[in-house]
């Protein structure tokens, strides 16, 4: 005879139950890793969005300003923004004083809602793209992340900035208005430490993403970043890099990707055949491969093919 107690006991012993419980909590376990004097990084998983990681796949940087911490990118959801706010208060009781969005992809600005009463800085093109594409991104993020996204609303950046010298909460930066990963990518060099917040212009040991990419322009942007000789690169995804290797790796990958797609188009390959092409060893071990490469084929191949194939009429 099954009593209520034995049934509960049986249910509790099911292997699925503890996992379901852990997911039901949906809490981000964020830690701030000190990189230099007054600079911390919250390092994201080098994965694609999933119900397991809750979208915590992005690097977020915190830097000491005069009246609190300056926050570079806000993560993928309202809940993530709230976790960032409380992490910031544990580092500086005054919390976040100013916010920057490096570009308009959802993992970089969907936590803005939590900081809506503070200035949120970005390039003009980023603000416009967030206004134009934010809602469509939100639809897809709710589909990918489910309840992690609860209550998240799209809050585009409020304050448009240009390139050149920039002071945020008393801290001096060189603002580099670039593009290529998206239509507008902002990189910021901290004058005091030579630390470069590169946004998604630089990926490190994690495959670059290309849904809004213009590869030649991206390569130019990487050249510009290299010329600044940063003391430390904080990529958009992947570990912090004191050697500059992250920029070299991103350039190498983008060059290989473009060359592979063009060679494929020039031998009459179809997208499925290209997607099945094995990756070279130096890229196969990157986070989110081969899925990210396959997504890039979907994003870029139709355009590449039109450029490479001769006219037939």
């Amino acid at each position, binding site marked *: 005879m099954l009593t209520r107690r034995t049934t509960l006991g049986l249910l509790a012993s099911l292997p699925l139950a503890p996992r379901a419980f852990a997911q039901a909590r949906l809490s981000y376990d964020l830690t701030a890793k000190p990189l230099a004097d007054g600079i911390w990084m919250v390092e994201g998983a080098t994965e694609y969005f999933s119900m397991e990681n809750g979208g915590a796949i992005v690097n977020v940087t915190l830097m000491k300003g005069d009246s609190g911490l300056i926050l570079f990118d806000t993560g993928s959801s309202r809940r993530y923004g709230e976790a960032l706010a409380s992490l910031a208060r544990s580092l500086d009781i005054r919390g976040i004083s100013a916010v920057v969005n490096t570009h308009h992809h959802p993992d970089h600005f969907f936590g803005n809602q939590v900081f809506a009463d503070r200035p949120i800085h970005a390039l003009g093109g980023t603000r416009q793209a967030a206004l134009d594409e934010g809602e469509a991104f939100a*639809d*897809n993020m709710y*589909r990918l992340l489910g309840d992690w996204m609860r209550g998240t609303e799209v809050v585009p950046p409020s304050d448009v900035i240009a390139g050149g010298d920039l002071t945020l909460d008393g801290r001096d930066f060189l603002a580099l208005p670039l593009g290529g990963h998206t239509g507008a990518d902002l990189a910021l060099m901290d004058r005091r430490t030579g630390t470069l917040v590169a946004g998604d212009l630089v990926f490190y040991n994690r495959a670059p993403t290309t849904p809004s990419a213009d590869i030649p322009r991206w390569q130019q942007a990487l050249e510009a970043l290299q010329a600044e000789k940063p003391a430390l690169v904080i990529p958009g995804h992947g570990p912090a890099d004191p050697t500059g290797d992250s920029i070299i790796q991103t350039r190498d990958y983008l060059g290989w990707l473009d060359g592979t797609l063009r060679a494929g188009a*020039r*031998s*009459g*390959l*179809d*997208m*499925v*055949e290209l*997607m*099945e092409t094995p990756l070279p060893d130096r890229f196969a071990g990157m986070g989110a491969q081969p899925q990210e490469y*396959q*997504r890039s084929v*979907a*994003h870029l191949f*139709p355009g590449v*093919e*039109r*450029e*490479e*194939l*001769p*006219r*037939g*009429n």
Partner: protein
Amino acid sequence: MFIRTAFAALIAVAGSAAVALDDPQTVLQDPMGSGMWNYHQKGLLGDPADIRFDDRVVLRAPDSAEDSLNVPLLVDATAIPDVKRIVISADYGPIPHILTYYPEQAEPKLALRFKIDQATAIRASVETQSGSWHIGSTYIDAAGGGCTAPANAYASDDWEEKLGEVHGRLWSASGRARLVVDHPMDTGLADGIPVFIIQDLSLQAEDGTPLARLELHEPVNEDPAFTFYFDAGALPASVKVKGRDNNGNRIRGVLSEGELN
């Protein structure tokens, strides 16, 4: 207790008998379990008796559609002898029929792109010359909306000048013919935009001998793109492209093993 079980069994039998009225004459066990196959077996294929799922019909595609407007698919039925035509379809979607391919002198193998409206089983139904059907399947996940969005072409104002523009080439040694035709391929499901699609597209030898032929439907992607496969060395030096859309516009082009851009 026994009476209740017997009654339930009776209801089950009566229920399945009622469903059987709508069943195709040959009921198959769908490996995708998608719930719509029986319906398409009758509606799309005309309820043939000689039909089976067959692993020799291979569909290659990504697990998930990154771009709902451009989902790549490669259908390979080269393991089936004497193929007459291949009907390619999606189980779920406002318009299930994507295209029908008549390989004629080509191999029964085709690469294409199409629009997807939701996660669905995709089928390639291969009919042989003797009238037996062999079905291959795959499943593609999707965020949706591919069939009801307006064509990207209308974001530019020169789409009319590009209409019917052909890009492509032959690769004789590997037996490939690749073809991209500029066309909005409007499904009629976007607000205020009527159906506007290429309906027929074929490859012909210089003397007009058909080499391969396609009947296209609304779900084929904007600017349709195909790879046709032939035996190595079987392609003539140049191939004519001939087609027509539902507004009577003619598509004309020539593919050869010419200079790449």
